[in-house]
């Protein structure tokens, strides 16, 4: 068989991505049709920049989900090596050094093979899954921590604020890369420090939710007990599984090397969120509706979580998008330095790192993940920009 021409390669890639196109078209059609009823999300479809960003983000999200969770899209297993395919260029027909390849196997390496003869295209699309299964959740946890600490720091001020701000600045003054090198090493994992950190960090979402329900429903004890109870049971179960790997039901677990990556990323992001929330809180707390809540004797957590927090959601949503992008970059950095993730992992950072070693001769192993990462982060930034612009309007 002859290698494919570039046109054929693009057509075949587009065909492989069919499920993604269908999902994208459906998402956009529905969103545009109902945009007037969808609040800020709907307004996004008035801004070309926001739409472009949203399109890029959803493209990689769908790609990641279909490839990682449903084994669609990808053409070969990400770990399958074929000595005959080492460093072969894009569109090379699939072959193996010994024996005939499986007749059902996809007949080409669409974007060529890497230095171990693995399929670059498949590794790239599964790399998206590596990102979207960590980055949004790590950002979410960072937000929970940042909000739970930032609100009281900004609202009460004084000594509490001084101490918390000092701690936040402490972490922020740490060069991220140094932190990663110190924290994400096998030796540190041995000592169990990441588990303790996880134990502390992962408590925050539970505290956050309990405070949220309690402050809102303390006037109606029945409802309060229900909400708090459910949160406690589900929270404790997830907490035991994720942080301590001790789920009594054996359903929830978290691979230790992934946990340390997760913890490191949350740890790096939380202080920035803290600072943002603190600043916004200090601004909003002077509003009359906060004073009105105070004069009717509301508790401080009610004021913080129900009077202040909903009114700073705009800037926080924007920052959330940016933060997912930043987290993606951080994950790439970790991969690039071979920290935390397993060496065979198809994540973009590791792939770029492997590909760059032969860069002066072979471009194709390093460029696809680099472009993929670039376009996802760009999409998130554009999305954030679009959201910011639309939320400022009216």
């Amino acid at each position, binding site marked *: 068989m002859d290698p494919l021409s570039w046109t054929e390669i693009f057509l075949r890639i587009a065909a492989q991505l069919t499920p993604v196109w269908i999902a994208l078209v459906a998402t956009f059609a529905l969103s545009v049709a109902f945009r007037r009823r969808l609040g800020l999300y709907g307004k996004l479809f008035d801004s070309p920049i926001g739409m472009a960003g949203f399109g890029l983000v959803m493209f990689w999200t769908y790609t990641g989900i279909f490839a990682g969770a449903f084994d669609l899209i990808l053409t070969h297993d990400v770990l399958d090596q074929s000595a005959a395919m080492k460093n072969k260029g894009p569109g090379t027909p699939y072959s193996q050094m010994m024996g005939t390849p499986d007749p059902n196997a996809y007949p080409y390496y669409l974007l060529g093979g890497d230095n171990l003869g693995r399929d670059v295209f498949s590794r790239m699309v599964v790399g998206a899954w590596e990102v979207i299964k960590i980055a949004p959740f790590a950002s979410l946890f960072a937000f929970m921590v940042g909000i739970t600490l930032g609100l009281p720091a900004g609202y009460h001020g004084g000594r509490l604020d001084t101490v918390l701000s*000092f701690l936040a*600045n*402490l972490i*922020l*003054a*740490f*060069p*991220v*890369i*140094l932190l990663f*090198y*110190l*924290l994400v*090493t*096998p*030796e*540190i994992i*041995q*000592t169990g*420090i990441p588990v303790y950190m996880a134990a502390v960090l992962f408590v925050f979402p539970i505290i956050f939710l309990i405070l949220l329900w309690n402050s809102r429903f303390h006037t109606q004890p029945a409802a309060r007990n229900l909400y708090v109870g459910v949160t406690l049971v589900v929270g404790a179960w997830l907490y035991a599984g994720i942080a301590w790997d001790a789920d009594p039901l054996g359903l929830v677990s978290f691979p230790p090397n992934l946990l340390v990556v997760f913890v490191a990323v949350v740890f790096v992001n939380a202080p920035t969120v803290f600072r943002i929330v603190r600043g916004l809180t200090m601004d909003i707390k002077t509003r009359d509706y906060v004073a009105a809540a105070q004069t009717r004797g509301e508790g401080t957590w009610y004021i913080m979580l129900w009077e202040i927090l909903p009114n700073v959601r705009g800037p926080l949503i924007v920052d959330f998008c940016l933060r997912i*992008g930043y987290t993606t*970059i951080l994950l*790439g*950095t970790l991969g*690039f*330095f071979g920290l935390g993730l397993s060496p065979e992992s198809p994540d973009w*950072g590791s792939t*770029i*790192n492997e*590909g*760059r070693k032969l*860069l*002066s*001769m*072979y*471009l194709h192993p*390093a*460029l696809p993940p*680099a472009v993929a*990462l*670039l376009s996802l*982060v*760009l999409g*998130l*930034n*554009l999305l954030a*920009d679009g959201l910011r612009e639309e939320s400022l309007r009216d």
Partner: protein
Amino acid sequence: MVTFILRRVGVMVLTALCLTFIVFFLTNLYPNLEKLAKTQGNFRMTDAEVESYLSRNGYLDPMLSKYGQWMGVWPGWVIEEDSVTRGRCIAPGQPPEEAPRFCGILQGDWGHSTVFRKDVDEIIAEKLALTGWLMLWVMLLMVPSALILGVLAGMREGSRTDRTLSTFAITTTATPEYVSGVLFIAIFASSAVGLQWFKGTATGAMTNPNFENFFLPVLTIALYGMGYIARMTRASMAEVMTAQYIRTARLKGVSFPNIVLKHALRNALIAPFTVIMLQFPWLLNGVVIVETLFNYKGFGWTLVQAASNNDIELLLAVSVVSVVVVLVTQLISDIGYVYLNPRISVT
């Protein structure tokens, strides 16, 4: 003003102490020490041998005491064994009585690198000089272009110039160094594309920097930070341009160039100034990536070597230096902010 600076310096010293202790703690955890013992001795040491090696070399002192010794505020360990007195501060062949009691970084004793087999302070000085050179060029390229970009974009918000420049700035912030570096090498340095305008490695730049071997690393670092500063400047500029006093100036009959230069610029640069200074912890990231990518054996490269080879004393020194650099820039940013912003009066 003096009290203000003193207070800031106080906070800075406290921060530095906390951070160095954290680094010290993390690098001196038992598994790290065990690894050290095995690399210094041999890899087949039993646990007991490891422990005796460590205790003979003062590694098993309490953490705080070790930290004090390393800082040079606590007497160095001294162990008598087989009628030979050895100690942290006793150089080989030196009579114990002549050795100083304290030897830590405060005395200028930064320890010895197990990887480079040299004194740490020598390595740091050499590497810092190399990276300082790199950073100088990065700053010279990044700051002016970012500010110009931001001001041009922000002075007429929503215009075509603004849209173009903003898109460019967003793209650069979305391109981490390990992506842009790879792209640049692929396009400008690889034999596959064939342009080969620049060199794909900067090893030569350590002794003889020139445009060909130095431009790509500098550009790679500068680009990522540039977008961010440009966006900050743009936002700040755009906000200032809608301010009431700009309208006052316009209605006074001031021409547009003068409005931008005389009225808007100083106010618009207050925010980005702090941002530039706070970029340092991030720039260090870029330095590490780029020095690895381009094989420029500077400070960042040393950090990677020290960390991946468990070279504890070198890693500690690298951490101290980077933390201090970051804190000093923060201090400068605070003081500069006060100078730039007349609304804050320091009496």
